[in-house]
Structure formats: C-alpha cells, structure tokens
C-alpha cells in the first residue's frame, strides 16, 4: 500500500493502472492513459499495399517530413486521385504552403487524424469511447453497440460506432463531411463522402511496439526537434496498435489497410492551439482558416 502511494505521488501511477482500471472491472480492455508516437503518417500493414508515402527522401533514406510530395504512382490511387496527389506535390516542391486540416485549423477528420496526430487518449465510458488528440484539442466519439443512423447527416468527424471483440476495440466510421480539406493523409490523397473507415485497437507486446515505432521513424522520418510527445523509454508495459482499413471506391482501386503504433508517453499532455499561430507573415491569415466574425454569444 505504501509502495502504491509513493509510486502515485511521484508520478509513476501508470505502474498501477492495470490493477486500478474501471475498464478492467467492466470486462473490457483498458486503453486508458497517454499514448504517443514520434513520426507522422501511416505504417504499412502486413499483406496490404503500402499507403501513399513521401517521394522526397533524406540522405539516410527516411522521408523528408518538411517536404510533402506524395507518391502519386501508388497503385492504390485511381487516376483522378493520383492527379490530385501529384499536383499537391508539385506545389510543395515549388515552395507553396499547401492547405490541409493541420495548417488551416480545420477538424482532423478520420483517417487524416491518424496520420497527423501524435498524442492520443482513449476514454471509456459506459456507452461510448472518446478519443482525444492533443494537436488542436481534437475530439471524436464512438458510440458503443449501436448501428449508424439510417438517415445520416455528414459531420466533421463522421458517425462512429464501436464494439469490443475480445481484446480489440473495433470502431466503424462513415458520414465524414467533405470539402476542400477532405483528405486521407498529409499528401492530400482525397477522401470522398463514401469513405468507410474501420479502426481496430489492441494492446501489443511492448518490445514489438518499440520495434514498430522505431522502424517507422527510420523509414518515415522523425517529426522534428524535441518531438510533440515524449515516449517513455522505461515503460515496461504494452504498446497500443491501431489497424485501419479504408474503403473509398471513388478514390482507391481497392480497400487497403495501415497501422499506427503508439507507446506510453511521459506526459504531460501537450496543449497545441492551432489558431494562436494563425497569422502568416507573408499571406496574412491562412486562406481557409476558420474565423468567427460574428460570435453567437
């Protein structure tokens, strides 16, 4: 008991989490706590064509996180989608700031969320699971054990329903609103109103998570100095892995899958507010930056 108290006071409460979890009591896996990673984009999933990745490589072979030129020859892309990715890459190479949800302070709708956000929390409640992402306080909810509404109105984050399959949380999302910033990833791969995203979350062996996360950093490039989240190198427990399956027949030649691997972070949760950097020195406000000239109260 004394040990538990000392661990708690001195910030190592995660060592106790597995025995104190309300989620455990309810008979569902405990995904609570702070998770993070230190590279953007999707990881390839075994058996699936790899996601669109960066054509611009650093001398060490890693993707250049500062120059986003998507591989428009990826066989997943239908011609129209490939042309969009190609055009965005050309603009990036020309030095343009190409709008995306991150630099325009727009909702990070799934699956863009998973390619961009580095910190995540899953909060289990009795009838829903809430997903928190630290970059710009993005929030999503998945409603447990109910179908999608019959007459679904598109919304910024879409309609997400969820259920548990043993140790796995399965989230099914449709009805994600479209617009000029509707995209799958940071390379501008378009997303249509038909996009159907299935997420599968499960805890994986800590060593496997470490290897996957480090491989992704090597191949994709680290996000930059310091990193958005600090992965706890001494955490002895398991990692969290998300497998995503994306169907969007108007965009892709076939459904495809990707993986995102998270590890425990040391915290604290980073507050990153998009709009505080909303003034571009040369261009004024970002072109698609949301503003509220007439607040409603």
């Amino acid at each position, binding site marked *: 008991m004394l040990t538990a108290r000392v661990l708690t006071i*001195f910030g190592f409460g995660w060592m106790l989490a597995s025995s104190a979890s309300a989620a455990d009591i309810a008979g569902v896996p405990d995904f609570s706590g702070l998770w993070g990673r230190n590279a953007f984009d999707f990881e390839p999933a075994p058996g699936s064509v790899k996601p669109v990745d960066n054509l611009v490589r650093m001398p060490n072979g890693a993707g250049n996180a500062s120059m986003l030129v998507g591989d428009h020859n990826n066989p997943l892309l239908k011609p129209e989608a490939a042309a969009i990715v190609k055009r965005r890459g050309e603009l990036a190479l020309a030095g343009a700031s190409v709008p995306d949800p991150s630099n325009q302070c727009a909702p990070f709708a799934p699956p863009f969320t998973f390619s961009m956000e580095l910190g995540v929390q899953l909060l289990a409640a009795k009838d829903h699971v809430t997903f928190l992402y630290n970059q710009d306080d993005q929030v999503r909810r998945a409603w447990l054990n109910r179908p999608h509404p019959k007459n679904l109105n598109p919304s910024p984050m879409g309609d997400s329903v969820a259920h548990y399959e043993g140790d796995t949380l399965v989230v099914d999302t449709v009805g994600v609103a479209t617009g000029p910033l509707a995209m799958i990833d940071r390379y501008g791969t378009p997303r249509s109103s038909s996009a159907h995203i299935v997420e599968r979350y499960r805890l994986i062996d800590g060593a496997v998570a470490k290897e996957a996360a480090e491989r992704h950093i090597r191949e994709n490039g680290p996000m930059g100095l310091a990193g958005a989240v600090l992965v706890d190198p001494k955490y002895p427990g398991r990692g969290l892995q998300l497998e995503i399956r994306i169907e969007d027949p108007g965009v892709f030649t076939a459904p495809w899958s990707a993986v995102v691997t998270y590890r425990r972070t040391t915290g604290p949760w980073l507050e990153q*507010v998009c709009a505080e950097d909303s003034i571009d020195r040369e261009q004024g406000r970002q072109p698609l930056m949301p503003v509220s000239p007439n607040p409603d*109260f």
Partner: protein
Amino acid sequence: MFRHSEVSAAHLGFRAIGLAALILAATTSVQAQRAPGSEGPDISGVWWASSYSPRIMPEGGSELPFTPIGRAAYEKNMAGLKNGTVEDAARTLCTPDGVPRLLATPYPFEIIQTPGQVTMIYEMNHAIRLVDMRKPLPSGEQLSILPYYDGHSAGQWEGDTLVIHSGGFKGTMFLDAYGAPHTDEMHTTERIRRINGGQQIEDVVTIEDPKYYVRPFTARFVYDHHPEIRLQDYVCGEAHRDLSGVKGVVGF
C-alpha cells in the same frame, strides 16, 4: 502547433526544455496537497448551464477587487475590445477560453472519469481540460515554463467534492467577455460537486492573482444534467447548436 515544415526549431526547443522541467517537477515536487484518494463520486456525464453571463460575477455581488495595475489593464482591455485594438481571440479565432472564462460557456460540456484522470470536454472550441488525479500540481514557477491556455490542473476528492487546482496559464487571456484581465501567475481552485439531488453540479472557483487583484475572489457556476444530449463537433465560424434556451445569450 505543427505546420509540417513550418515548425520553429527555437519554439520547439523552448517547449522541450519546458516539458523536461515539468516532467522533473512531476517527479520531485510535493506540495501541501492531499494525496490523491479513490476515484471519487460520479460526476460524469453531459452538463449544460441554463444561463450565461458575459461578466464574471464575484459571489456576494461585490466588484472585482482590482489592484491599480489590474484596473488599468481592465480599462485598457475594455476600451480596446470596443475600438478594435484588442482582439478577443477566443471568440474570433476560437482559441481556448481558459479558466475561469470557460466555466461560463453557454454550450454543453462532458465530464469523463477514468483511472487517475478527470477529463472535461467542452463542445465550444472542442476544448479539453485534463485533471491529473495522481500527481500534485507543480509549483507556479515550474508551470510558468510551459504555460497553457487552459492551464495545468491537478485534483483530489474531498468527500463529495472534486477540488481542482490550476496554474500555469497564459497571461494573454480574459476572465470574462468584458476583458477582466489576469496574469500568468493566476491560480484557481475549483470545488465541484453534485447539488439538488444530483441533477445539477456547481463549480465554485476561487481566483488568486495578487498582481491584478488585491484579494482572492470567488464565482459560482451551476450546470444542469443533460443525459439526452450528445456533444457535437464544433468548427470555428460555423453554425452550432441552438443556444436560445440559455438565458443571457444574445446575438441570435
């Protein structure tokens, strides 16, 4: 906020130093707060105020107890908000309101209780507050290294009441829509509990900011339980839910 290639190395370097200091603080600082106890009473769910006041109202009906420089800052903010030289970024750009202005929100919010953390998710600006129930709040000096709009918060249960200490705020925000100022040294203490048979919660917040206010003062906010409501996605500048039922909201 990352803009892919537009990440400022200096900015991130500063954040990294601040982050490291905070982690150190979390593992070395033990203030005179009670150690975290059990998970506490259930205050989870969706809550929504039935009235809104753009002006923070100190309990007892008193005026805000400004110091001379606090009053000067207030008058400057009020004049600037009126003539446009001061921008209310929380409304025009949807930056976070921060505590205590956030407590006056006319939009619903949700409280989620999970092991070691109480989370408050506000529909407006999809703001998130995380209350750490396992560690005490680092000192003001330590928190000042990495200030947040919504501050840093740590909580504990005292009987049926959740007591939240918050500090480490940015000093660029307002206590209310009139521009009542605060500094980055503000400390708030909230006492949250169910009232009226559990159908409401109250949040009684005490604000301490000696540079701008000669004494601590307290304001009270009450919210109704709304289990039938689901929070909606919130996009700055777009139309949101109908607030006409919230007394005091104007602009519809």
